[in-house]
C-alpha cells in the first residue's frame, strides 16, 4: 500500500501553547486513496496536529510536504489553495448565516459585476445536500436553528463540495445518528475510491477498523506509532491508546 510519494507528509511537527507541548515531534503521512485514522485519548493533540495542516495553526518546528514538495501553510487560505479541506471538530460554522452562506464562506460565487450570486450558491447547496443528507430542508434559516447532526452535515458538505484532494475530518460523526453515520461511512469509502487522501480523527474503534487503512496513535502530544489496520486487532489499537505502547508483533 505505502508506495510512491505520499500525498501528505508531516515531518517532525511540534507546537506548544505556553508550556504545554500539544504536539511533540510527530510525523505522519498519507497516500492518495488512503484513510489514515488519528487516534488517542482526549487532549492527545490530534486536533492540534491537523490544524497545522489546515492552516489554523503554524507549527513551531517541522515540515509539511505535499506530493513530495515542501510547502509553507501559514493560513487556512494556503491550505485551501493546496486542495486541503477540513471538517473541524467545532464545525466552524457562522451561526447567523444559512447553510449555503456557510458552505461558500470565503469562496463566494459572484456575478460578473462582483455581486454575490446568492441563488446559484443556494442551488448548489441544495444539490450537494441532496446527496449527503436528502432529508435536509432548512435552507433558509441560519444554521443556529439546525440540529447538531444537521450542522455537521453542512460542515461535511462544505469540505466535500470543493473537490478536495486531501480531506481532514475531525470526529465527523460525533453528532450524527446511526443512519447519517452510515452515510458518512459510505461517503468516506466513495471519496477514497476517487483517490482522495483522508485523515480521520475518530474515537469509535469499530469505525476505525472498518474505514481506515492505517492508524496513527497519539498520547500526550507524542506519536505512539502507526499500524496497518488489517495487521492488528482492535484490542491492539486500544492498548496502544491506553498504554501508549506499540504492540510487539506489529512493531
Amino acid at each position, binding site marked *: 500500500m505505502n508506495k510512491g510519494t505520499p500525498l501528505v507528509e508531516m515531518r517532525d511537527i511540534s507546537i506548544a501553547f505556553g508550556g504545554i507541548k500539544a504536539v511533540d515531534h510527530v510525523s505522519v503521512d498519507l497516500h492518495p486513496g488512503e484513510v489514515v485514522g488519528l487516534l488517542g485519548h482526549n487532549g492527545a493533540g490530534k486536533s492540534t496536529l491537523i490544524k497545522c495542516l489546515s492552516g489554523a495553526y503554524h507549527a513551531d518546528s517541522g515540515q509539511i510536504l505535499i506530493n513530495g514538495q515542501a510547502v509553507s501553510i501559514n493560513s487556512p487560505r494556503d491550505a485551501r489553495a493546496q486542495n486541503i479541506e477540513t471538517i473541524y471538530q467545532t464545525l466552524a460554522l457562522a451561526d447567523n448565516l444559512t447553510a449555503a452562506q456557510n458552505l461558500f464562506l470565503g469562496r463566494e460565487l459572484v456575478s460578473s459585476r462582483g455581486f454575490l450570486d446568492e441563488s446559484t450558491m443556494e*442551488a448548489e447547496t441544495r444539490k450537494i445536500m441532496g446527496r449527503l443528507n436528502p432529508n435536509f430542508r432548512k435552507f433558509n434559516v441560519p444554521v443556529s436553528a439546525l440540529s447538531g447532526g444537521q450542522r455537521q452535515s453542512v460542515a461535511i458538505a462544505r469540505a466535500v463540495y470543493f473537490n478536495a484532494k486531501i480531506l481532514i475530518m475531525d470526529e465527523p460523526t460525533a453528532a450524527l445518528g446511526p443512519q447519517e453515520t452510515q452515510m458518512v461511512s459510505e461517503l468516506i469509502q466513495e471519496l477514497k475510491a476517487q483517490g482522495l487522501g483522508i485523515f480521520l480523527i475518530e474515537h469509535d474503534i469499530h469505525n476505525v477498523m472498518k474505514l481506515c487503512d492505517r492508524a496513527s496513535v497519539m498520547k500526550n502530544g507524542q506519536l505512539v506509532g502507526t499500524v496497518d489496520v488489517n495487521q492488528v486487532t482492535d484490542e491492539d489499537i486500544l492498548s496502544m491508546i491506553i498504554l501508549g505502547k506499540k504492540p510487539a508483533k506489529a512493531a
Partner: protein
Amino acid sequence: MTTAPRPAHASHDLKGSPFARFVAATEIDTRLMGMAGALLLIWFGFHFYGVVFNGEGFFLTPRNLWNLSVQMCSIGVMATGMVLVIVTRNIDLSVGSLLGFIGMVMGLLQVEWLPPSMGLGHPAIWIITVAVGLSLGALIGTLNGVLIAYLAIPSFIVTLGGLMAWRGAAFLMANGRTISPVDTNFQLLGGGPYGSIGSTGSWIIGIIACAAVLYGLLAGRKNRQKHDFPQRPIWAEVFMGALGCALILGAVLVVDSYYWPKGIVKAYAEANNIIVPPEGLFISLGFAYPVLILVTVALLMTVLMTRTRFGRYVFAIGGNPEAAALSGINVRWMTVKIYALMGMLAGLSAVISSARLTSATNALGQTDELYVIAAAVIGGTSLAGGVGTIYGAVLGALVMESLRTGMVLIGFDTAVQNIVVGLVLIVAVYLDIIYRKRTK
C-alpha cells in the same frame, strides 16, 4: 427574521392566522413592522399632545417633517457605519468627538487656511474641504482599527480614549473659538432653502425610486423562477409594490408642500427681479441635499452589506470570528477596514452638521455617539454581534430624532429629554430581546 443576510427566498407556508399568512406571503420583516408602528405612535402621539395641550399639533406638518428629515441625516449616516462595527462585536464611542474634530478642521480650512491663497468663495473650496474631511475621518478610523485589531486593545477602550482625545483636539485646534461662517457652497450640503432640490427634482427622484422598486420586485421574481424557488403570491407582490411607491410618493408630497420662508422668498425675488404676487410666492423646498446624501449612503451600504463579499464577511465575523478566520477571512484587516469606513462616515456627518450649522463649534457632535449607537440598536443591531440591518439603523435614527424633535416641540427641557431617551433605549433593547426569544 432578523438575520441580516436575506436568504435567497423564504418558504410560504400558507397556514396559521391571517396575519401570519400575510407576513409569510409578503416576507415583510415583522421587526420592521414593529418599528414602523412605534414611529407612527411617536408621530401621532406628539401631534395630538400638541392638539390637546397647546391647541395645535405641530408635529405632522410639512415644515416639521421636512426639518426632521434633515436633522436625522447626521445621525443616520453614522448609524449605517455603526451597524458594521456592532455586528462585528465591537463598538465605536468616538464618532461624536471625531465629528467635532473633523468639523473643526474643515471649518478652519475654509475660513482661515484656504481663502488667503485661493480667495474667499472660490468654487473649489468646498470640494477640497469635503475631501479632506472624508480622508481625515478614514485615516483616524484606520488608526482606531489598527489599535483594536493588531494591538488587541478592546474597542471600548480605544474609542473611549478617542471620545476624550478628539474632543480635546477639536478645542485645541481653535482654542474653543466658533469658526464661522463656512463657505457658501459648503453650506448647501446642510440643507436649507438653497440646499434643496425643489419640486421638479423631488418628483423626478420619486418617480425613479418607484420605478426602481417595481423593477426590483420583478427582477427578484424572475430570479426565483430561474432557480425554481417558491414564488410570492401575485397579490403580495402587488401589495409590496404599491406600499413602496405610496411611501416614496408620500414623502415627495410632504417635502413638496413645504415652502420657502417668506423672508428668503422676498430676498430671492428682489435679487432676481421677480414681482411677488399679492397672494405670495410659493416655492417648494423638496428634498434637502443631506437627505439625498443619507439615502445614497444607505443604499450603498445596503448593497455593501447584502450583496458583496465584504458584507458577508462582516456578518460571518460577527457570527463566529473563529469560523470566519478558518474560512480564510482576514479578520484583523476586515476590522481595520470597518473602522476606516466608520471614520469616513463620521467625516461625512461632520460635513452635514457643520454645513447645517454654518459654523464649526467645539460642541459639534457632542453625545452623538449615544444617539448613533441607540439608532443602530433600536434598529435591530444585536450587541451580541452577527445581526443587523442598514435600513433598521436608518429607521432607528428617525425614531431617535423624532423623539428629540417632538420633545423640543412640546417644550420638554434637555434634562427631561435625556431621561426619556435613556429609558427608551433600555425599553427598546428589552423589547428586542423578547422579540428575538419569540422568533427563535
